[in-house]
């Protein structure tokens, strides 16, 4: 294989991985703080893509969609946390899994009803359409935008977690929730904020992915499994873990397809099984319960 094709594939893998971080970030932060496994997270990503689709159709402007759709999904996330997740605190983490599984199902069906079963796509904004040529390599400009946009989002999340008070509380909450509560911080309010934050990130991922991949009602289900794998590899509850896990998965997927086509995906699950068995807390996670 030519090196140009290889570089193209690696760029693809990094792009997929970067977008996946945005989805996995919410999943892992929500788990880290609340021990809630949010099965509906993929559906929020899908909802972001569909709202982006409609907003582009109404306004004809991609940037408005990117700005408006995520807060709308954030509101949905708020409602889910407030009326579905919150009543179940104290009933054990498995109940949240059962519940969010149902919520995700309902969101998927609502999408079917509102937007229909057909596959849609959004045209990338005019400035970002076209192909960048660099020697032998030619690469769609929009994909490069997605790569850099997601990467800068990831850096921003990292700064938020490391440098802000909000991030400090989240990290402390992941470490010892009760102590944070005892120090006089309203943990349940922080829970809601983290949940909304995660929902917004998933929606951002949904909107930026829409012009690159197709928008369809099964996309939430497809992505949630990948996001879970990324989070498991990195360690549930760890943001750096999610970053490493998502990038590794993105690269493994494209490179696996190149070298061992038909069993590539099945092989990934063997890796997941081995990690869960030997180091259930993942590569970066703290050992928990």
């Amino acid at each position, binding site marked *: 294989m030519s090196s140009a094709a290889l570089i193209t594939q690696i760029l693809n893998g990094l792009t997929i991985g970067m977008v996946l971080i945005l989805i996995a970030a919410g999943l892992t932060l929500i*788990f880290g703080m609340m*021990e809630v*496994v949010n099965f509906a997270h993929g559906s929020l990503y899908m909802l972001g893509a569909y709202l982006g689709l409609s907003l582009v159709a109404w306004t004809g402007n991609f940037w408005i969609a990117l700005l408006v759709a995520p807060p709308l999904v954030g509101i949905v996330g708020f409602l889910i946390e407030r009326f*579905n997740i919150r*009543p*179940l605190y104290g*009933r054990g*983490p*498995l*109940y949240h*899994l*059962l*519940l969010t*599984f*149902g*919520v995700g*199902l*309902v969101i*998927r*069906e*609502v999408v*079917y*009803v509102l937007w229909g079963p057909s596959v849609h796509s959004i045209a990338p904004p005019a400035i970002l359409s076209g192909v960048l040529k660099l020697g032998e390599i030619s690469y769609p400009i929009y994909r490069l935008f997605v790569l850099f946009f997601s990467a800068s989002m990831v850096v921003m999340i990292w700064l938020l977690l490391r440098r802000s008070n909000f991030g400090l509380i989240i990290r402390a909450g992941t470490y010892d929730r009760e102590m944070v509560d005892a120090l006089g911080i309203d943990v349940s309010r922080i829970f809601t904020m983290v949940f909304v934050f995660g929902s917004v990130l998933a929606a951002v991922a949904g909107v930026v992915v829409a012009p690159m991949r197709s928008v369809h009602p099964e996309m939430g*289900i497809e992505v949630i*499994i990948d996001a*879970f*794998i990324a989070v*498991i590899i990195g360690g*549930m509850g760890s943001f750096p873990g999610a970053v490493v896990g998502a990038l590794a998965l993105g690269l493994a997927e494209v490179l696996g397809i190149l070298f061992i086509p*038909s*069993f590539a*995906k*099945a092989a990934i*699950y*063997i890796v*997941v*099984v081995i990690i*869960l*068995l030997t180091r*259930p807390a993942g590569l970066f996670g703290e050992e928990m*319960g």
Partner: protein
Amino acid sequence: MRREHLIEMAPLAFLAILPLTSPVLLSPFYIDLATKILILGIALLGYDILAGYTGLVSFGHGMFFGLGAYTVALLLLNFTQSIWLALMAAVALTTFIAFVVAFLSIRTRGIYFVLLTMAFAQFFYLAVYNWVSLTGGSNGLGGIPKTSLFSVDLGSVTSFYYFTLIFLVASYYLCKRIVNSPLGKVLEAIRENEERAEFIGYDVKRFKRRAFVISGFFSGLAGALFGHYQSYVSPDLFHWSFSGQFIIMTWLGGVGTLVGPVLGGAVLIYLGDLISSLTERWLIFMGIIYVIFVLFSPKGIVGLVRCSWR
């Protein structure tokens, strides 16, 4: 005790005479629906021992159902015409795989266990999907021949209905025996407080493995019956959304009650058919009902009924 027997006998009598009402009262279509409910009921009984009585939620039991179905399909297509041989081989293989999966996944706890069962199921899903020469890939396997038993044609819907009903009743009494046995009590102890059960001196992991293998056995049996009945199998049986249906049915009907999950399966399949004739997106209603039950009635429909009786 008397009353309890009556409660058990009434549905059994109902199930026994159901096909006789066809085609006068019920169209054969409903016998077909009822057969599917019975088949899934067998899997759900076993699943309840794991999820309801031991407190281990598996997100991958579709893999055992699928393995049973594919084994029967491959055997009937290529090797044998004997339903017994096919069923026994399918159940034996599934139970063995269940033991391997249990051996590996029982080491983990809580959410990691759930994700591990899911990963195993996805692995099988993709393996079946990609091993086209054996499994037919995404097309699945069709044209699985029907068999006959003591010169009874199992291809007929009514006779297969009774064939399945016998298995369901036997499974129900077997599961009830298990639940009421010392083994069942230990499983419940593990569900209520794992540390304490371990402190008393029980080998918790071994008991959890047993529960897992038992549930795998019943899922495999149900899948094997399904493969013969549908004469078509597809990789969707391994997909986690099918495994997820086990969860929805179990919690809708009433987890940890044996009857509940079977009832939940019946409601989901029957209502699904009823609503789907009105609207294609029937799952939206089932999803909302399921969410309401998880939120407000942890013991599902059975819990509601029990509450209103008291």
